[in-house]
């Protein structure tokens, strides 16, 4: 296992960043997914969408250059790049729902071998609300769940989600610090593995059934 959580998160973010191609429109969720932006390879021009109303989102502003009218979906002040533009919430979700966003990357409370995920409510305990997540996972062309492999020792990749769903059968890929899974019509397939773990360790920490790809690769991070 990888005990250092910050290291684990960086492994995940780095791996996901390698997935994008030039000029793709990508939406990164709050938290771990936001870190993906820091690892996009040089020469790959990824266009970031922020569902509150912009594409071409740039990094945080330099001190003294903050503009409270330019914020991201987490409410933080950001910048806009030369190729960016602004729009209202209806247009923003038309882009999202209408399959114009190539990738959405988001976290999950639970994700399962059928590609369903739960990310917005723990009944009786925590109810942040779904925000834009339900639209994003239904609308984006590719849905990547970024998650630590376990939480307090418990697996996050389940046979079937137990919490209320964000959406069913929508996840294409799950990236953890231990490996990369693809959701296929036949079930979950482990396609990449971190060099610092083993298939047995992954099995021991995964509730879901999965096959190991014939073409299993080492996770490049």
């Amino acid at each position, binding site marked *: 296992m990888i005990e250092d959580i910050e290291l684990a998160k960086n492994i995940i973010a780095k791996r996901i960043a390698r997935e994008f191609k030039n000029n793709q429109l990508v939406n990164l969720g709050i938290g771990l997914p936001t870190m993906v932006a820091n690892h996009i390879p040089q020469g790959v021009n990824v266009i970031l969408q922020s*569902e509150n109303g912009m594409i071409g989102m740039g990094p945080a502003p330099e001190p003294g250059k903050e503009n409270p*009218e330019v914020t991201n979906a987490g409410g933080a002040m950001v910048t806009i790049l030369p190729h960016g533009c*602004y729009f209202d919430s209806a247009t923003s*979700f038309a882009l999202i729902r209408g399959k114009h966003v190539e990738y959405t990357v988001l976290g999950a409370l639970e994700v399962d071998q059928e590609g369903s995920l739960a990310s917005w409510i723990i009944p009786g305990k*925590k109810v*942040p*609300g779904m925000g834009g997540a339900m639209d994003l996972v239904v609308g984006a062309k590719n849905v990547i769940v970024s998650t630590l492999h376990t939480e307090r020792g418990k697996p996050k990749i389940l046979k079937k989600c137990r919490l209320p*769903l964000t959406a*069913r059968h929508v996840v294409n890929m799950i990236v953890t610090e231990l490996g990369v899974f693809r959701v296929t019509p036949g079930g979950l397939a482990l396609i990449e593995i971190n060099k610092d773990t083993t298939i047995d360790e992954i099995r021991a920490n995964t509730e879901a059934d999965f096959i190991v790809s014939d073409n299993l690769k080492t996770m490049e991070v």
Partner: protein
Amino acid sequence: MFDKIINKNDFTSLIKDGMVIMVGGFLGCGTPETLIDLVLASGAKNLTLICNDTSFVDRGVGRLVAAKQAAKVITSHIGTNPETGKQMVEGTLNVELVPQGTLAERIRCAGAGLGGVLTPTGVGTVVEEGKQKITVDGHEYLLELPLRADLAIINGSSVDKAGNVVYNATTRNFNPLMAMAASVVVVEAEKLVEPGALMPELVMTPGPLVTHIFKSEKR
């Protein structure tokens, strides 16, 4: 000629207990803070608030929740305002959670005279409860219905005296949608200009949609 500018008393007289109010903004960005000050000062109770999120306890629409002036909130996200969750658990606040894109379309439907819209969002989740499901071309959709309000309070970066509104950067969000979906629409103008001063291609809310203009007192 257009006679749309109102003062604090005029605005306060529009606020009634139990009314449905849409409030523009996204986590406080593009929110009419001065108008919210006045709703707070009015002490109006049992409001239904329609808003993207409940912002923060000390900012934007979240202040109305914190002041316990709302009986109901229709919104997509409450995670940044602990008061919303607390009152919901205590049973004093009714919270209807709506996916953000669906919230936008439901408000748009009301403004555009549409009877509803079919969305794939929420199918197979608790969001589908109580809703009609319609299958088109082999795909299941939820029929989502229009959402309208008695009053919309929106924020405009630049507003001309005819009511045309320009929104800077990400302050746009729900403001132009809400400006179409309420019986009375009040815009808080950060900058108030003469007709003709705004580029007509930049205007996102045409003047006739705006009932009243209030000059912002934001710092």
